[in-house]
């Protein structure tokens, strides 16, 4: 564990929206680290702040507190123009809905190449075309598609265009914000395989944001569960699925629809009630209950969780 190299560190970040006097705290005191070459899953329901964290990493949402580091270099807050360009290059995002995230009035060639037009980068028309062709064929599209418009493509193809756009700058780290939840079942597998192949070929690191736990389990190495802007549990995928500790994680896991009629019929739904915590006196702490398994809990709860693990 320890010898693995940390790629991205999120250090006690806080994101606020709204008026200065009464801000809405979307993300509160969130810390995690993503190792080089791994796929890190961030799971939670809508409104839990998972997308906000992703956007904070690509610097679309400013931080109210804390710091984000990429390869030990701070990438949040004020940066010099040179640093800024480097970070834009290294960190890219894949968006949720390929129907909305592509400019419908631009041709695919331009959409994919747009990152190359930024000031400070000088490419000739010829170089750009070559790079676009390469990016398109990397994601399994034909170079001819560059002269077409997004509406001519199906959902799965559009998502590939979105991935090509992220890849053209040769990033190290990709934030994938629900990249497959808007896609059809039969297309999902194609896109998941593509993401896995790219990771293997280019040694990419992913932050995979999703609400569908079954997908997350399949592709992620480690998973963090987020609830109301705070991470409540973080563990290796299999560990999390085998021994969920936090009641919210348990509720989430119990709700996953299984494509198995027998399992579905015998399923017991757990409902998470935040009132089950008694945090008035004893504030919860971010604690490591076993190696690599972190949980947000106070002292009495920790005892219960530890006993549960021993069983």
């Amino acid at each position, binding site marked *: 564990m320890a010898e693995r190299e940390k790629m991205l560190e999120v250090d006690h970040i806080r994101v606020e929206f709204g008026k200065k006097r009464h801000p809405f705290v979307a993300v509160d005191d969130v810390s995690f680290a993503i190792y080089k070459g791994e796929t890190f899953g961030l799971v939670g329901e*809508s409104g839990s702040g998972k997308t906000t964290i992703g956007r904070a990493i690509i610097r679309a949402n400013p931080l109210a507190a804390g710091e984000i580091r990429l390869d030990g270099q701070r990438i949040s807050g004020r940066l010099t123009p040179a640093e800024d360009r480097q970070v834009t290059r290294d960190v890219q995002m894949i968006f949720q809905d390929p129907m909305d995230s592509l400019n419908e009035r631009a041709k695919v060639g331009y959409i994919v190449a747009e990152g190359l037009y930024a000031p400070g980068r000088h490419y000739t028309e010829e170089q750009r075309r070559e790079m676009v062709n390469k990016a398109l064929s990397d994601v399994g599209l034909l170079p001819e598609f560059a002269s077409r418009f997004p509406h001519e493509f199906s959902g799965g193809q559009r998502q590939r265009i979105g991935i090509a756009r992220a890849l053209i700058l040769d990033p190290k780290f990709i934030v994938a914000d629900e990249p497959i939840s808007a896609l059809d079942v039969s297309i999902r597998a194609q896109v998941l395989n593509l993401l896995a192949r790219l990771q293997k070929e280019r040694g990419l690191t992913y932050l995979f944001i999703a609400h569908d736990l079954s997908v997350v*389990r399949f592709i992620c190495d480690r998973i963090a569960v987020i609830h109301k802007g705070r991470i409540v549990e973080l563990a290796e995928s299999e560990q999390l699925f085998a021994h969920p500790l936090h009641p919210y994680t348990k509720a989430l896991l119990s*709700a996953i*629809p299984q494509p198995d009629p027998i399992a579905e019929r015998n399923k017991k739904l757990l409902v998470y009630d935040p009132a089950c915590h008694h945090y008035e006196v004893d504030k919860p702490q971010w604690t490591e209950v076993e190696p690599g398994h972190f949980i947000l809990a106070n002292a009495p709860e920790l005892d219960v969780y530890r006993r549960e693990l021993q069983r």
Partner: protein
Amino acid sequence: MDQQQVLLSVQDLNFKFTLRGQVLHALRGISLDVYKGESLAIVGESGSGKSVFVKCLMGLNDANGCVESGKILYDGKDLAQFKSDAEWRALRGHRIAMVLQDPMTSLNPLKTIGWQIREAVELHQNLHGDAAKKAVYEILAEVGISDPQRRYNQYPHEFSGGMRQRVVIAIAMACKPEILICDEPTTALDVTIQAQILGLIKEMQKKYDLTTIYITHDLGVVANVADRIAVMYAGDIVEVGRCEEVFYDPRHPYTWALLSSLPQLGVKGEPLYSIEGTPPNLFHEVRGDAFAPRNPHALKMDFVKRPPMFTVTATHAARTWLLDPRAPKIDPPEHIRALREKGRQLGLTKGEECANG
């Protein structure tokens, strides 16, 4: 199963849309019986025609589409012959009601939810004044919305997604229908909420002896709710059977492909099984089996002639030449064999060695 009463029967339905002079063959000869009190799930990817199919049952398709041939028999009438809105209105809501996908768009943002439910109550139950209001309170409480008196005067934006979907269900239930059609009722919702909403629909079904038709592409939801499953591909039902039969003993290569591509059944670190290519363009005539071009197991026959429905058991049928006695024996993919094994162990399916041998 045989004693079950057929409530609605669709026979060889063909539905076409005309778009800028081109003809799109959206439903290609669908036949399906819906039994009283069952819950039927229609599964398929987008563009497979599942929404068009249920909209046919309510006469809600766009004006550029028409039923070309076939029958929809319900309550002694042939719905395919309906022409005027007046005929449909006697049926819509009253006998067949629908819950739409996105509760954000299916409610009127300018009216209170009380008003919207009350509209349905007044039209369909003929209640007015205080009686109507009381009925609305009762329905709200029934679908699990607490404090109905206060909620009555609130607008849709004051509700969360799951609550809004409860309101939509309340409106559908206010009509006291016989058939409830749920068009992707939970795709826009979170997993935890999704489970609650499915529970609510099931509860309503039991209480009012409803027949429900679900449309979804989420096989997890299907496994949860369905008694019977119909798998649609390119405007056609390719496989139909009881839930266990389709999940543990699927026969059509498309069903195999769908089940194999689920990440839940995948092995970590290995590529998922994925269906290559895209569904056929229904503007062109489809020859043979529509799935053949994407099917690694396709036979020569599949490209020539459209397969008929082969019966596997009394309740299970699939439209594939693989079930023809003359077809070569083809082993289904590994995942499917594992599922079959599981089904056999549980004693759910007879699981005789591939009937296509």
